[in-house]
């Protein structure tokens, strides 16, 4: 066992960092897209259904198929990491978008009415009232998305994007359970850590009902 760790320790650490970078970049992209989109949907609620439906469909695409679809595309297909990040971001869109939208829609209408009636500008209402009050929801969406993506990112090794999936695939191919666990355990720990950290933020921004 110690022999195994001595041999693979460096590689596990390296792949863990790679795994984190893939998921982190994907989450960043997804957040930059989905949070503003979620806000926009609260202004144009007639678009909420169709847009959420599209992101919903994205979620149902099996991950292996998704990586396969992206492979032949120009630019994207050149680097496996690009494919992985785009695919992971696509999966992360729905939870973030839905929670941003639901978080803002769930704000007490009296609070929003007063914010308007006392002469806050649209920007002030968004920054001072809507986003802070929806923050807990948005973090919950980010948490779900991150945990899901850390799991799916292991599949990205199938297209050569690296990450902890690499050890899992190698372990499966060589029927070596130690290798499978060497990929699976750190991935699970990453997911737990992300869950805990974002859960902390989620609770930090929770607003007690009046």
């Amino acid at each position, binding site marked *: 066992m110690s022999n195994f760790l001595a041999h693979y320790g460096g590689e596990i650490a390296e792949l863990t960092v790679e795994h984190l970078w893939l998921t982190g970049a994907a989450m960043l992209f997804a957040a930059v897209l989905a949070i503003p989109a979620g806000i926009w949907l609260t202004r144009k609620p007639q678009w909420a259904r169709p847009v959420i439906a599209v992101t919903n469909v994205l979620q149902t695409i099996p991950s292996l198929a998704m990586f396969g679809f992206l492979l032949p595309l120009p630019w994207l297909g050149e680097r496996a990491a690009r494919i992985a990040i785009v695919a992971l971001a696509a999966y992360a869109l729905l939870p973030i978008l839905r929670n941003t939208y639901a978080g803002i829609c769930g704000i007490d209408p009296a609070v929003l009415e007063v914010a308007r009636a006392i*002469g806050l500008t649209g920007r002030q209402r968004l920054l001072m009232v809507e986003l802070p009050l929806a923050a807990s929801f948005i973090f919950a969406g980010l948490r779900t998305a991150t945990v899901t993506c850390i799991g799916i990112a292991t599949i990205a090794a199938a297209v050569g994007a690296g990450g902890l999936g690499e050890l899992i695939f190698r372990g499966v191919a060589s029927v070596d359970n130690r290798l499978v666990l060497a990929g699976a355990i750190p991935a699970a720990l990453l997911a737990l850590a992300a869950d805990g950290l974002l859960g902390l933020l989620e609770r930090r921004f929770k607003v007690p009902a009046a």
Partner: protein
Amino acid sequence: MQKIEKSEGSPAIALSDVSVTTPQRRLLLDHVSLTCDAGTTTVILGRSGSGKTTLLRTINGMIAASSGQIKVRSVDVQTADLTQLRRGIGYVIQETGLFPHFTIERNVGVVLEAIDRPRNDRIQRIRELLAAVGLDPASFAGRYPHQLSGGQRQRVGLARALAADPPILLMDEPFGALDPLTRAEMQDLLRNLLSRMRKTIVLVTHDVDEALYLADRIVLLQEGRLVTRVSPQEFLNSSAPEVAVFLRAYRRGARQMRSEINT
């Protein structure tokens, strides 16, 4: 009915021939004309669904009139910069709409924050206001709305509405959710404040007693139409059937007791 009396200058609020129709073509306000003189309190009385709140909300442009004209201190609401207009009009509603994530201090000062008043000025003003509505600044400034009782929250709502010293205050059933004793305290507080500062108030209620107690003018709405606009004294003495309905429902308990004693 009673005609509008003469007053110096233009009225603080003037609605002429205002109608509001919903997109579903339901008529909420039916050709209402009304003026409120500066420094007076106008109480709008009516049943639920009579258009009271709609009328109030046309004044600060929260609801757009379908026809007619609304002027607030000679500014036409339909063409006004609504953000600027609303900053000059205090707004108090039954649900208070306090920001749950702000401390009491920040809630009271939010309008001042929005207009970039320096922080030290704000804090000074917030303290004055909290004291004016009967809340000890030292113990309340740092609390959050959910830590306050309904009456205390309504006091904070009133302080917030007064923060930028607006000449006009719109109040939509401000004390409707409070128990009768707390409501009476708040009515006294409001009267007390008004005796010290000159504000034009439009207050919506369905409480006849509140209307008689606070109003310079009582406006009665029925199905979107303005039925009458009279002084409290005239309201009490009115023989109009629409008014009589309200007066019959008012203080029934006491009247019944009296009639039982007399028989």
